[in-house]
Protein backbone atom coordinates (compact mmCIF):
# COMPACT_ATOMS: atom_id res chain seq x y z
CA UNK A 1 0.00 0.00 0.00
CA UNK A 2 1.47 3.42 -0.91
CA UNK A 3 2.61 5.56 1.96
CA UNK A 4 2.58 9.33 2.11
CA UNK A 5 4.57 12.31 3.28
CA UNK A 6 2.81 15.19 4.97
CA UNK A 7 4.22 18.44 3.59
CA UNK A 8 3.39 21.22 6.00
CA UNK A 9 2.59 24.60 4.51
CA UNK A 10 3.21 27.81 6.37
CA UNK A 11 2.53 31.29 4.98
CA UNK A 12 5.81 31.57 3.09
CA UNK A 13 5.29 28.22 1.37
CA UNK A 14 1.70 29.09 0.50
CA UNK A 15 2.96 32.25 -1.23
CA UNK A 16 5.31 30.19 -3.39
CA UNK A 17 2.41 28.04 -4.55
CA UNK A 18 0.19 30.93 -5.67
CA UNK A 19 -1.11 30.29 -9.17
CA UNK A 20 0.22 26.74 -9.30
CA UNK A 21 -3.23 25.21 -9.23
CA UNK A 22 -2.19 23.12 -6.25
CA UNK A 23 -4.08 25.29 -3.78
CA UNK A 24 -7.19 23.17 -4.17
CA UNK A 25 -5.26 20.09 -3.07
CA UNK A 26 -4.37 21.60 0.27
CA UNK A 27 -5.65 19.53 3.16
CA UNK A 28 -6.93 21.35 6.17
CA UNK A 29 -5.80 19.57 9.28
CA UNK A 30 -6.77 19.96 12.91
CA UNK A 31 -9.90 21.96 12.20
CA UNK A 32 -8.17 24.22 9.70
CA UNK A 33 -5.36 25.11 12.10
CA UNK A 34 -2.76 23.54 9.83
CA UNK A 35 -2.37 23.36 6.04
CA UNK A 36 -0.59 20.46 4.36
CA UNK A 37 -0.25 18.35 1.26
CA UNK A 38 -0.36 14.59 1.60
CA UNK A 39 2.12 13.49 -1.04
CA UNK A 40 1.62 9.86 -2.01
CA UNK A 41 4.84 7.83 -2.19
CA UNK A 42 5.08 4.55 -4.10
CA UNK A 43 6.31 1.37 -2.38
CA UNK A 44 9.50 1.50 -4.44
CA UNK A 45 10.26 5.06 -3.42
CA UNK A 46 9.33 4.32 0.21
CA UNK A 47 11.86 1.49 0.32
CA UNK A 48 14.50 3.77 -1.13
CA UNK A 49 13.82 6.49 1.46
CA UNK A 50 13.97 4.02 4.35
CA UNK A 51 17.27 2.67 3.00
CA UNK A 52 18.80 6.11 2.63
CA UNK A 53 17.92 7.43 6.10
CA UNK A 54 18.37 5.24 9.16
CA UNK A 55 16.05 7.44 11.24
CA UNK A 56 13.18 7.30 8.72
CA UNK A 57 10.16 5.23 9.63
CA UNK A 58 6.51 4.78 8.88
CA UNK A 59 4.26 5.96 11.68
CA UNK A 60 0.89 4.70 12.82
CA UNK A 61 -0.87 6.87 10.20
CA UNK A 62 1.11 5.34 7.32
CA UNK A 63 3.19 8.50 6.96
CA UNK A 64 6.91 8.48 6.29
CA UNK A 65 8.46 10.45 9.12
CA UNK A 66 11.72 11.17 10.95
CA UNK A 67 13.48 12.07 7.72
CA UNK A 68 16.03 14.92 7.71
CA UNK A 69 14.69 18.45 7.53
CA UNK A 70 16.70 18.90 4.33
CA UNK A 71 14.67 16.09 2.79
CA UNK A 72 11.38 17.79 3.67
CA UNK A 73 12.66 21.08 2.30
CA UNK A 74 13.61 19.50 -1.03
CA UNK A 75 10.26 17.73 -1.24
CA UNK A 76 8.54 21.10 -1.05
CA UNK A 77 10.96 22.66 -3.55
CA UNK A 78 10.23 19.89 -6.06
CA UNK A 79 6.48 20.27 -5.56
CA UNK A 80 6.75 24.03 -6.19
CA UNK A 81 9.06 23.51 -9.18
CA UNK A 82 6.99 20.79 -10.82
CA UNK A 83 3.64 22.28 -9.76
CA UNK A 84 2.53 18.73 -9.11
CA UNK A 85 1.90 16.12 -6.46
CA UNK A 86 2.63 13.25 -8.86
CA UNK A 87 5.38 10.60 -8.76
CA UNK A 88 7.77 12.93 -10.65
CA UNK A 89 8.12 14.93 -7.43
CA UNK A 90 9.72 12.04 -5.57
CA UNK A 91 11.83 11.17 -8.60
CA UNK A 92 13.17 14.72 -8.53
CA UNK A 93 13.79 14.48 -4.77
CA UNK A 94 15.67 11.19 -5.02
CA UNK A 95 17.81 12.58 -7.84
CA UNK A 96 19.02 15.23 -5.35
CA UNK A 97 19.99 12.68 -2.68
CA UNK A 98 23.66 13.70 -2.52
CA UNK A 99 22.71 17.33 -1.87
CA UNK A 100 20.14 16.27 0.75
CA UNK A 101 22.64 14.06 2.56
CA UNK A 102 25.25 16.79 2.65
CA UNK A 103 22.76 19.20 4.22
CA UNK A 104 21.42 16.49 6.55
CA UNK A 105 24.91 15.79 7.90
CA UNK A 106 25.13 19.40 9.06
CA UNK A 107 21.73 19.28 10.74
CA UNK A 108 22.36 16.13 12.77
CA UNK A 109 24.01 18.12 15.57
CA UNK A 110 22.57 21.59 15.10
CA UNK A 111 19.25 23.07 14.08
CA UNK A 112 18.61 26.79 14.44
CA UNK A 113 15.86 27.43 16.97
CA UNK A 114 12.89 29.52 15.86
CA UNK A 115 13.30 33.20 16.59
CA UNK A 116 10.51 33.52 19.09
CA UNK A 117 10.46 34.98 22.54
CA UNK A 118 10.52 32.29 25.18
Amino acid sequence: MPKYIAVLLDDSRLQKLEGSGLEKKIEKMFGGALNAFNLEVSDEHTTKILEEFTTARIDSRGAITDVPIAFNRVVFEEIAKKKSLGPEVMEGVLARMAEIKEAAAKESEYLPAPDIEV
Partner: protein
Amino acid sequence: MSIRIERPEPHGGRLIDRVVTDPAAGKKLAKGAAVFDIKPTLDENGVPVRNVYREIMSTCYGFFSPVEGSMKQAEVERILKERRLLNDWVFPYPLVFDVSEEDHKKLGVTPGDRVLLRLKGKPFAILDVEEIYRIDQEELAHKTFGTPEANPEVVKEAFNKKHPGWVIYKSLNPVIYAGKYKIINEPKLRPPFDRFWFPPKKCREEFDKRGWRTVIVHQTRNVPHVGHEHLMKNAAYTGDTEPCHGILVNAVIGVKRKGDYPDEAIVEGHEAVNLYGYIKPERHMVTILLWDMRYGNPLESLLHGIVRQNMGCTHHMFGRDHAAVGEYYDMYATQILWGKGVPSFGFDKPVNEVPYGLKIRPQNMAEFWYCPKCGEIAYSGSCNHKERQKFSGSFIRGMVSEGIFPPGVIFRPEVYKVAVKWWKVYGYPFVTPKYLMEREKELEVDLPDMDI
Protein backbone atom coordinates in the same frame (compact mmCIF):
# COMPACT_ATOMS: atom_id res chain seq x y z
CA MET B 1 -18.01 -3.33 51.60
CA SER B 2 -16.55 0.10 50.94
CA ILE B 3 -16.19 1.11 47.33
CA ARG B 4 -13.65 3.76 48.25
CA ILE B 5 -10.21 3.04 46.88
CA GLU B 6 -7.42 3.54 49.39
CA ARG B 7 -3.76 4.24 48.73
CA PRO B 8 -1.93 0.95 48.13
CA GLU B 9 0.90 -0.29 50.31
CA PRO B 10 4.36 -0.19 48.77
CA HIS B 11 5.29 -3.15 46.59
CA GLY B 12 6.81 -5.74 48.93
CA GLY B 13 5.01 -4.27 51.95
CA ARG B 14 7.43 -1.49 52.96
CA LEU B 15 9.36 1.33 51.37
CA ILE B 16 13.06 0.74 51.09
CA ASP B 17 15.10 3.59 52.55
CA ARG B 18 18.84 3.13 52.16
CA VAL B 19 19.99 6.73 52.42
CA VAL B 20 22.24 7.87 55.26
CA THR B 21 21.40 11.51 55.89
CA ASP B 22 24.02 12.10 58.60
CA PRO B 23 27.38 12.81 56.88
CA ALA B 24 29.37 11.65 59.93
CA ALA B 25 27.62 8.29 59.87
CA GLY B 26 28.14 8.09 56.10
CA LYS B 27 31.87 8.74 56.44
CA LYS B 28 32.16 6.02 59.04
CA LEU B 29 30.50 3.47 56.75
CA ALA B 30 32.87 4.25 53.88
CA LYS B 31 36.09 4.03 55.86
CA GLY B 32 38.49 1.39 54.60
CA ALA B 33 36.35 0.41 51.60
CA ALA B 34 37.83 -0.21 48.14
CA VAL B 35 37.18 2.84 45.97
CA PHE B 36 35.51 2.72 42.56
CA ASP B 37 34.57 5.65 40.35
CA ILE B 38 31.23 5.07 38.64
CA LYS B 39 31.51 5.08 34.87
CA PRO B 40 28.73 5.36 32.29
CA THR B 41 27.77 2.35 30.22
CA LEU B 42 28.76 3.15 26.65
CA ASP B 43 27.50 1.72 23.37
CA GLU B 44 29.79 0.56 20.58
CA ASN B 45 30.20 4.17 19.42
CA GLY B 46 31.19 5.43 22.85
CA VAL B 47 27.85 7.17 23.47
CA PRO B 48 26.43 6.88 27.03
CA VAL B 49 23.43 4.54 27.22
CA ARG B 50 23.14 4.23 30.99
CA ASN B 51 24.64 5.37 34.26
CA VAL B 52 24.20 2.94 37.15
CA TYR B 53 24.03 5.86 39.58
CA ARG B 54 20.40 6.35 38.49
CA GLU B 55 19.59 2.77 39.51
CA ILE B 56 21.36 3.28 42.84
CA MET B 57 19.36 6.47 43.49
CA SER B 58 16.05 4.85 42.54
CA THR B 59 16.82 1.78 44.64
CA CYS B 60 18.00 3.58 47.77
CA TYR B 61 15.19 6.15 47.75
CA GLY B 62 12.62 3.35 47.50
CA PHE B 63 11.28 3.80 43.96
CA PHE B 64 12.17 0.16 43.20
CA SER B 65 11.03 -1.28 46.57
CA PRO B 66 11.50 -4.07 47.55
CA VAL B 67 14.77 -4.18 45.57
CA GLU B 68 17.72 -3.18 47.77
CA GLY B 69 20.73 -3.51 45.54
CA SER B 70 22.49 -5.24 42.69
CA MET B 71 20.91 -8.63 42.11
CA LYS B 72 22.46 -12.05 42.75
CA GLN B 73 22.77 -14.53 39.89
CA ALA B 74 19.86 -16.68 41.14
CA GLU B 75 17.67 -13.58 41.31
CA VAL B 76 18.57 -12.51 37.77
CA GLU B 77 17.78 -16.02 36.54
CA ARG B 78 14.43 -16.04 38.32
CA ILE B 79 13.52 -12.68 36.86
CA LEU B 80 14.35 -13.85 33.35
CA LYS B 81 12.22 -16.95 33.86
CA GLU B 82 9.29 -15.74 35.97
CA ARG B 83 9.71 -11.98 36.41
CA ARG B 84 9.91 -12.42 40.18
CA LEU B 85 12.49 -11.60 42.83
CA LEU B 86 13.79 -14.34 45.13
CA ASN B 87 11.28 -13.15 47.76
CA ASP B 88 8.47 -13.83 45.20
CA TRP B 89 7.51 -10.22 44.52
CA VAL B 90 6.95 -9.40 40.86
CA PHE B 91 9.79 -7.47 39.20
CA PRO B 92 10.53 -7.11 35.47
CA TYR B 93 14.20 -6.37 34.95
CA PRO B 94 17.59 -7.58 36.12
CA LEU B 95 19.37 -4.69 37.87
CA VAL B 96 23.07 -5.23 38.36
CA PHE B 97 26.30 -3.43 39.21
CA ASP B 98 28.76 -4.32 36.47
CA VAL B 99 32.52 -3.78 36.23
CA SER B 100 35.08 -4.66 33.59
CA GLU B 101 37.55 -7.54 34.08
CA GLU B 102 40.30 -4.92 34.25
CA ASP B 103 38.58 -2.91 36.99
CA HIS B 104 37.72 -6.10 38.87
CA LYS B 105 41.36 -7.11 38.83
CA LYS B 106 42.47 -3.68 40.03
CA LEU B 107 39.89 -3.60 42.84
CA GLY B 108 40.69 -7.10 44.06
CA VAL B 109 37.28 -7.30 45.70
CA THR B 110 35.85 -10.58 47.03
CA PRO B 111 32.46 -11.41 48.57
CA GLY B 112 32.21 -9.82 51.99
CA ASP B 113 34.10 -6.68 50.93
CA ARG B 114 32.67 -3.18 50.84
CA VAL B 115 33.13 -0.88 47.84
CA LEU B 116 32.89 2.89 48.08
CA LEU B 117 31.27 4.16 44.89
CA ARG B 118 32.28 7.66 43.88
CA LEU B 119 30.29 9.85 41.55
CA LYS B 120 31.72 12.94 39.89
CA GLY B 121 34.83 12.28 41.96
CA LYS B 122 33.03 12.41 45.31
CA PRO B 123 31.84 9.72 47.73
CA PHE B 124 28.30 8.68 46.84
CA ALA B 125 27.32 5.19 48.00
CA ILE B 126 28.60 1.90 49.30
CA LEU B 127 28.03 -1.56 47.90
CA ASP B 128 28.41 -4.52 50.24
CA VAL B 129 29.49 -7.29 47.90
CA GLU B 130 27.77 -10.59 48.66
CA GLU B 131 28.44 -12.42 45.41
CA ILE B 132 30.56 -11.98 42.28
CA TYR B 133 29.58 -13.62 38.99
CA ARG B 134 29.86 -13.13 35.26
CA ILE B 135 27.26 -12.60 32.58
CA ASP B 136 26.95 -13.27 28.88
CA GLN B 137 25.73 -9.82 27.89
CA GLU B 138 24.04 -10.77 24.62
CA GLU B 139 22.19 -13.68 26.17
CA LEU B 140 21.09 -11.45 29.05
CA ALA B 141 19.88 -8.82 26.57
CA HIS B 142 17.80 -11.35 24.63
CA LYS B 143 16.32 -13.00 27.71
CA THR B 144 15.52 -9.68 29.36
CA PHE B 145 13.19 -8.53 26.59
CA GLY B 146 11.95 -11.88 25.32
CA THR B 147 11.90 -13.44 21.88
CA PRO B 148 9.16 -14.14 19.32
CA GLU B 149 9.67 -17.88 19.90
CA ALA B 150 9.60 -17.83 23.71
CA ASN B 151 7.04 -15.03 24.15
CA PRO B 152 4.75 -15.22 21.12
CA GLU B 153 1.85 -13.51 22.93
CA VAL B 154 3.57 -10.13 22.82
CA VAL B 155 7.01 -10.21 21.14
CA LYS B 156 6.76 -9.68 17.39
CA GLU B 157 10.37 -9.17 16.31
CA ALA B 158 13.75 -10.34 17.58
CA PHE B 159 15.53 -7.61 19.51
CA ASN B 160 18.72 -6.19 18.06
CA LYS B 161 21.10 -3.26 18.31
CA LYS B 162 18.46 -0.82 17.08
CA HIS B 163 16.61 -1.28 20.39
CA PRO B 164 18.04 1.06 23.08
CA GLY B 165 17.13 -1.21 26.00
CA TRP B 166 18.71 -4.25 24.37
CA VAL B 167 21.84 -2.15 23.78
CA ILE B 168 22.02 -1.29 27.50
CA TYR B 169 22.17 -4.96 28.52
CA LYS B 170 24.46 -5.86 25.62
CA SER B 171 26.85 -3.06 26.66
CA LEU B 172 27.20 -4.08 30.32
CA ASN B 173 30.58 -5.10 31.67
CA PRO B 174 30.94 -8.86 32.25
CA VAL B 175 31.66 -8.94 36.02
CA ILE B 176 28.74 -8.41 38.38
CA TYR B 177 29.02 -7.39 42.03
CA ALA B 178 25.80 -8.38 43.78
CA GLY B 179 24.85 -6.82 47.10
CA LYS B 180 22.99 -4.01 48.80
CA TYR B 181 23.62 -0.34 48.13
CA LYS B 182 23.54 2.47 50.65
CA ILE B 183 23.84 6.15 49.77
CA ILE B 184 26.26 7.69 52.26
CA ASN B 185 26.55 11.21 50.84
CA GLU B 186 23.16 12.53 49.87
CA PRO B 187 23.23 14.14 46.42
CA LYS B 188 21.49 17.43 45.65
CA LEU B 189 19.34 17.44 42.56
CA ARG B 190 20.33 20.11 40.04
CA PRO B 191 17.86 22.61 38.57
CA PRO B 192 15.40 22.18 36.98
CA PHE B 193 15.11 18.61 38.32
CA ASP B 194 15.29 19.59 41.99
CA ARG B 195 11.75 20.93 42.15
CA PHE B 196 10.36 17.69 40.69
CA TRP B 197 12.20 15.33 43.05
CA PHE B 198 9.60 13.47 45.12
CA PRO B 199 10.94 10.10 46.30
CA PRO B 200 8.15 7.73 47.38
CA LYS B 201 8.10 8.70 51.06
CA LYS B 202 8.01 12.43 50.28
CA CYS B 203 5.50 11.86 47.49
CA ARG B 204 3.10 10.05 49.81
CA GLU B 205 3.46 12.90 52.33
CA GLU B 206 2.70 15.40 49.56
CA PHE B 207 -0.46 13.47 48.65
CA ASP B 208 -1.51 13.68 52.31
CA LYS B 209 -0.92 17.43 52.31
CA ARG B 210 -2.98 17.84 49.17
CA GLY B 211 -5.74 15.55 50.43
CA TRP B 212 -5.31 13.19 47.47
CA ARG B 213 -6.65 9.71 48.22
CA THR B 214 -6.94 8.60 44.60
CA VAL B 215 -4.16 9.52 42.18
CA ILE B 216 -3.74 8.49 38.56
CA VAL B 217 -0.27 8.57 37.10
CA HIS B 218 0.84 9.58 33.64
CA GLN B 219 4.12 8.06 32.49
CA THR B 220 6.04 10.37 30.22
CA ARG B 221 9.18 10.75 28.15
CA ASN B 222 7.64 13.52 26.07
CA VAL B 223 6.94 17.20 26.02
CA PRO B 224 3.15 17.00 26.26
CA HIS B 225 1.07 17.74 23.19
CA VAL B 226 -2.64 18.33 23.46
CA GLY B 227 -3.36 14.62 22.90
CA HIS B 228 -1.36 13.82 26.04
CA GLU B 229 -3.25 16.49 27.92
CA HIS B 230 -6.57 14.96 26.89
CA LEU B 231 -5.33 11.50 27.85
CA MET B 232 -4.52 12.83 31.33
CA LYS B 233 -7.78 14.71 31.74
CA ASN B 234 -9.99 11.88 30.50
CA ALA B 235 -8.18 9.02 32.21
CA ALA B 236 -8.50 10.97 35.45
CA TYR B 237 -12.30 10.65 35.29
CA THR B 238 -11.78 7.18 36.66
CA GLY B 239 -11.48 6.92 40.44
CA ASP B 240 -14.14 5.53 42.76
CA THR B 241 -17.10 7.62 43.84
CA GLU B 242 -15.59 10.64 42.12
CA PRO B 243 -12.80 11.25 39.59
CA CYS B 244 -9.23 10.81 40.78
CA HIS B 245 -8.20 13.59 43.14
CA GLY B 246 -4.77 13.96 41.60
CA ILE B 247 -2.95 13.53 38.32
CA LEU B 248 0.69 12.67 38.88
CA VAL B 249 3.06 13.11 35.97
CA ASN B 250 6.15 10.97 36.51
CA ALA B 251 8.79 11.79 33.92
CA VAL B 252 11.57 9.35 33.26
CA ILE B 253 14.90 11.19 33.45
CA GLY B 254 18.01 9.57 32.05
CA VAL B 255 19.50 8.48 28.77
CA LYS B 256 16.94 8.42 26.00
CA ARG B 257 16.93 7.50 22.38
CA LYS B 258 17.95 9.96 19.71
CA GLY B 259 14.87 11.94 18.74
CA ASP B 260 13.25 12.05 22.19
CA TYR B 261 13.01 15.46 23.83
CA PRO B 262 15.66 16.70 26.30
CA ASP B 263 14.74 15.91 29.89
CA GLU B 264 14.64 19.56 30.90
CA ALA B 265 12.04 20.32 28.23
CA ILE B 266 9.97 17.30 29.30
CA VAL B 267 9.63 18.33 32.95
CA GLU B 268 9.14 22.02 32.30
CA GLY B 269 6.75 21.28 29.44
CA HIS B 270 4.52 19.27 31.76
CA GLU B 271 4.84 21.92 34.43
CA ALA B 272 3.60 24.50 31.91
CA VAL B 273 0.36 22.50 31.58
CA ASN B 274 -0.50 23.38 35.16
CA LEU B 275 1.26 26.77 35.37
CA TYR B 276 -0.88 28.06 32.50
CA GLY B 277 -4.08 26.54 33.78
CA TYR B 278 -4.76 23.73 31.31
CA ILE B 279 -5.01 21.47 34.35
CA LYS B 280 -5.24 23.12 37.76
CA PRO B 281 -1.99 22.93 39.73
CA GLU B 282 -4.09 21.82 42.69
CA ARG B 283 -4.88 18.66 40.72
CA HIS B 284 -1.69 18.14 38.72
CA MET B 285 1.84 17.50 39.95
CA VAL B 286 5.04 16.82 38.02
CA THR B 287 7.67 14.44 39.41
CA ILE B 288 10.66 12.52 38.11
CA LEU B 289 12.13 9.03 38.14
CA LEU B 290 15.86 8.58 37.53
CA TRP B 291 16.08 5.69 35.10
CA ASP B 292 17.69 4.97 31.75
CA MET B 293 14.67 3.78 29.81
CA ARG B 294 14.74 0.20 28.56
CA TYR B 295 11.78 0.81 26.20
CA GLY B 296 10.46 -2.62 27.19
CA ASN B 297 6.74 -1.91 26.62
CA PRO B 298 4.97 -4.55 28.84
CA LEU B 299 8.02 -5.05 31.05
CA GLU B 300 8.58 -1.33 31.35
CA SER B 301 4.92 -0.99 32.34
CA LEU B 302 5.54 -3.42 35.21
CA LEU B 303 8.41 -1.29 36.45
CA HIS B 304 6.25 1.82 36.04
CA GLY B 305 3.46 0.18 38.04
CA ILE B 306 5.86 -0.74 40.85
CA VAL B 307 7.47 2.71 40.99
CA ARG B 308 4.18 4.58 40.98
CA GLN B 309 2.54 2.22 43.49
CA ASN B 310 5.51 2.94 45.72
CA MET B 311 4.90 6.65 45.19
CA GLY B 312 1.34 6.12 46.45
CA CYS B 313 -0.70 6.20 43.26
CA THR B 314 -3.94 4.25 42.98
CA HIS B 315 -4.25 4.15 39.18
CA HIS B 316 -1.87 4.04 36.23
CA MET B 317 -2.87 5.08 32.73
CA PHE B 318 -1.49 2.94 29.95
CA GLY B 319 -1.81 3.80 26.29
CA ARG B 320 -0.99 2.11 23.01
CA ASP B 321 2.72 1.34 22.50
CA HIS B 322 3.47 2.10 26.13
CA ALA B 323 7.19 2.92 26.59
CA ALA B 324 7.87 1.30 23.26
CA VAL B 325 10.21 1.89 20.38
CA GLY B 326 9.98 0.17 17.00
CA GLU B 327 7.68 -2.79 16.44
CA TYR B 328 9.34 -5.38 18.67
CA TYR B 329 6.25 -5.78 20.81
CA ASP B 330 2.56 -5.92 20.00
CA MET B 331 1.30 -2.34 20.24
CA TYR B 332 -1.11 -3.44 22.95
CA ALA B 333 1.40 -5.66 24.80
CA THR B 334 1.13 -3.61 27.99
CA GLN B 335 -2.63 -3.73 27.95
CA ILE B 336 -2.52 -7.50 27.34
CA LEU B 337 -0.23 -7.91 30.36
CA TRP B 338 -2.52 -5.87 32.62
CA GLY B 339 -5.77 -7.07 31.02
CA LYS B 340 -5.29 -10.83 30.90
CA GLY B 341 -1.65 -11.65 31.63
CA VAL B 342 1.24 -13.01 29.57
CA PRO B 343 1.85 -16.69 30.57
CA SER B 344 5.27 -16.84 28.95
CA PHE B 345 6.40 -14.01 31.22
CA GLY B 346 5.07 -15.96 34.22
CA PHE B 347 1.64 -14.33 34.47
CA ASP B 348 -1.40 -16.43 33.63
CA LYS B 349 -3.58 -13.66 35.06
CA PRO B 350 -3.34 -9.86 35.07
CA VAL B 351 -0.31 -8.74 37.06
CA ASN B 352 -2.46 -7.21 39.77
CA GLU B 353 -4.33 -10.48 40.30
CA VAL B 354 -1.36 -12.80 40.86
CA PRO B 355 0.19 -13.51 44.30
CA TYR B 356 2.87 -10.94 45.20
CA GLY B 357 1.65 -8.84 42.30
CA LEU B 358 0.84 -5.17 42.04
CA LYS B 359 -1.95 -3.28 43.77
CA ILE B 360 -2.04 -0.24 41.51
CA ARG B 361 -4.99 -0.34 39.07
CA PRO B 362 -4.45 -0.11 35.34
CA GLN B 363 -6.48 2.34 33.30
CA ASN B 364 -5.93 1.02 29.79
CA MET B 365 -6.65 3.78 27.32
CA ALA B 366 -6.91 3.63 23.56
CA GLU B 367 -6.25 6.65 21.36
CA PHE B 368 -7.07 10.30 21.10
CA TRP B 369 -7.22 12.11 17.80
CA TYR B 370 -8.59 15.32 16.37
CA CYS B 371 -11.93 14.69 14.66
CA PRO B 372 -12.93 17.44 12.20
CA LYS B 373 -16.54 16.27 12.30
CA CYS B 374 -16.76 16.41 16.09
CA GLY B 375 -14.65 19.57 15.96
CA GLU B 376 -12.71 18.43 19.01
CA ILE B 377 -10.18 16.00 20.40
CA ALA B 378 -12.00 12.68 20.33
CA TYR B 379 -11.49 9.33 22.01
CA SER B 380 -11.21 6.36 19.69
CA GLY B 381 -13.59 4.36 21.84
CA SER B 382 -16.28 6.99 21.33
CA CYS B 383 -15.82 8.78 18.01
CA ASN B 384 -17.15 6.86 15.01
CA HIS B 385 -16.19 9.30 12.25
CA LYS B 386 -13.81 8.20 9.56
CA GLU B 387 -11.61 11.25 9.23
CA ARG B 388 -9.17 11.39 12.07
CA GLN B 389 -6.02 13.41 12.57
CA LYS B 390 -3.72 11.59 14.88
CA PHE B 391 -1.23 13.06 17.31
CA SER B 392 1.68 11.17 15.87
CA GLY B 393 4.80 11.96 17.86
CA SER B 394 6.98 11.80 14.79
CA PHE B 395 4.64 14.07 12.83
CA ILE B 396 4.85 16.61 15.60
CA ARG B 397 8.64 16.23 15.85
CA GLY B 398 8.84 16.91 12.11
CA MET B 399 6.76 20.06 12.49
CA VAL B 400 8.88 21.26 15.41
CA SER B 401 12.13 20.57 13.51
CA GLU B 402 10.92 22.58 10.55
CA GLY B 403 10.43 25.53 12.90
CA ILE B 404 6.68 25.75 12.29
CA PHE B 405 4.85 27.20 15.29
CA PRO B 406 2.31 24.48 16.06
CA PRO B 407 -1.35 25.42 16.28
CA GLY B 408 -2.84 25.45 19.77
CA VAL B 409 -4.85 22.34 19.01
CA ILE B 410 -1.57 20.41 18.78
CA PHE B 411 0.72 22.13 21.30
CA ARG B 412 -0.20 24.68 23.90
CA PRO B 413 1.90 27.76 23.03
CA GLU B 414 3.44 27.92 26.49
CA VAL B 415 4.47 24.28 26.27
CA TYR B 416 5.97 24.77 22.81
CA LYS B 417 7.94 27.76 24.10
CA VAL B 418 9.47 25.55 26.78
CA ALA B 419 10.65 23.16 24.07
CA VAL B 420 12.16 26.11 22.17
CA LYS B 421 13.79 27.44 25.37
CA TRP B 422 15.79 24.20 25.76
CA TRP B 423 16.34 23.98 21.99
CA LYS B 424 18.17 27.31 22.29
CA VAL B 425 20.28 25.95 25.16
CA TYR B 426 21.34 22.73 23.41
CA GLY B 427 21.19 23.85 19.76
CA TYR B 428 18.78 21.07 18.95
CA PRO B 429 15.17 20.34 19.85
CA PHE B 430 15.78 16.63 20.52
CA VAL B 431 18.25 14.27 22.11
CA THR B 432 21.51 13.89 20.17
CA PRO B 433 24.72 12.02 21.04
CA LYS B 434 26.24 15.43 21.88
CA TYR B 435 23.41 16.14 24.33
CA LEU B 436 23.89 12.74 25.96
CA MET B 437 27.61 13.32 26.36
CA GLU B 438 27.10 16.80 27.83
CA ARG B 439 24.47 15.48 30.22
CA GLU B 440 26.72 12.61 31.27
CA LYS B 441 29.30 15.12 32.53
CA GLU B 442 26.78 17.00 34.65
CA LEU B 443 24.21 14.29 35.43
CA GLU B 444 21.16 15.38 37.44
CA VAL B 445 22.92 15.70 40.79
CA ASP B 446 25.78 17.39 42.57
CA LEU B 447 27.43 15.89 45.61
CA PRO B 448 28.66 17.68 48.72
CA ASP B 449 32.35 17.39 49.59
CA MET B 450 33.13 14.51 51.92
CA ASP B 451 36.63 13.61 53.09
CA ILE B 452 37.11 9.98 53.89
